[in-house]
């Protein structure tokens, strides 16, 4: 078992493995998106309180959850890379960041679009939206730091440290903002769990799975490019069919 893990932790092996997985992930993700949208728009009924607008949450909630989880996964890979000095983990961390940032952006954007018909304003300084905004800042900081260091090894290690510091801060920031928010304003409209129709839940879970698979496919594709870039002087890259042609 242990040997197998180390084998896949080698960039050359992972490059091939990821290449085989990506088409499957992509197809599965596209299918799940189609199914999720079908359930979400054709099967799920209109919500009594929110009308049609609640259908935005089928993309909004998965995007928010993914942006948070991806940050944690990114920090996890960063920590692995920093502690055990494994090359692949650092590459994974930097491959996850852009996707995480885009999900954070989608979450903010769709949140604003949901907020307008619900609350009458595009933006509310509500705990979750504020935390999401700060999360986007943290992603941007990670990407900016990585991009501004020329030496790849220093870039990996410096941004890994930043990701770890950030991940310690994310819960602190979340609870601070939440606490600050309850102090400054009354209750906001909440989506009560009991009122959720079974079809709504199905749509949400399908969309969530689709987003996960999409994120995996995209991250694997990005990490493959990073591997190529970093290992361009090795013989195995020279022997790849896509390089030779």
């Amino acid at each position, binding site marked *: 078992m242990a040997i197998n893990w180390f084998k896949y932790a080698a960039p050359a092996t992972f490059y091939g493995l990821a290449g085989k997985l990506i088409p499957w992930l992509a197809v599965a993700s596209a299918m799940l998106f189609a199914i999720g949208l079908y359930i979400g728009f054709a099967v799920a009924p209109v919500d009594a309180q929110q*009308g049609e607008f609640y259908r935005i949450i089928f993309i909004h909630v998965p995007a928010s959850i993914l942006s948070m989880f991806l940050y944690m996964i990114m920090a996890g890979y960063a920590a692995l890379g920093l502690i055990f000095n494994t090359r692949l983990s650092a590459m994974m961390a930097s491959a996850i960041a*852009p996707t995480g940032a885009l999900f954070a952006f989608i979450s903010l954007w769709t949140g604003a679009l949901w907020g307008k018909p619900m609350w009458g304003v595009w933006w509310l300084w509500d705990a979750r939206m504020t935390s999401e905004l700060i999360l986007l800042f943290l992603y941007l900081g990670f990407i900016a730091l990585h991009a501004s260091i020329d030496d790849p090894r220093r870039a990996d290690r410096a941004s890994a440290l930043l990701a770890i510091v950030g991940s310690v801060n994310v819960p602190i920031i979340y609870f601070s903002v939440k606490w600050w928010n309850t102090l400054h304003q009354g209750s906001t409209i909440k989506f009560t769990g009991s009122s959720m129709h079974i079809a709504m839940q199905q749509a949400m879970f399908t969309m969530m799975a689709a987003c996960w698979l999409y994120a995996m496919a995209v991250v694997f594709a990005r990490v493959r*490019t990073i591997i190529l870039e970093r290992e361009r002087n090795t013989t195995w890259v020279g022997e790849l069919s896509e390089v030779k042609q």
Partner: protein
Amino acid sequence: MALDIWMRENPFTYIWIGSYGVAMLVFAIELGMLKNARKATLQKIRMMRNSGGNE
């Protein structure tokens, strides 16, 4: 407030263009950039290998 009225009359257009449309656009941009980056990297490596002689 014209937007508010329009929004309530055409909720599906609002949802599709505003949320799902933007999300898909973001996905499409990301995929496009990935494809481009891969192409550029492969090209760079091929050029480097050709100019450096086949070692």
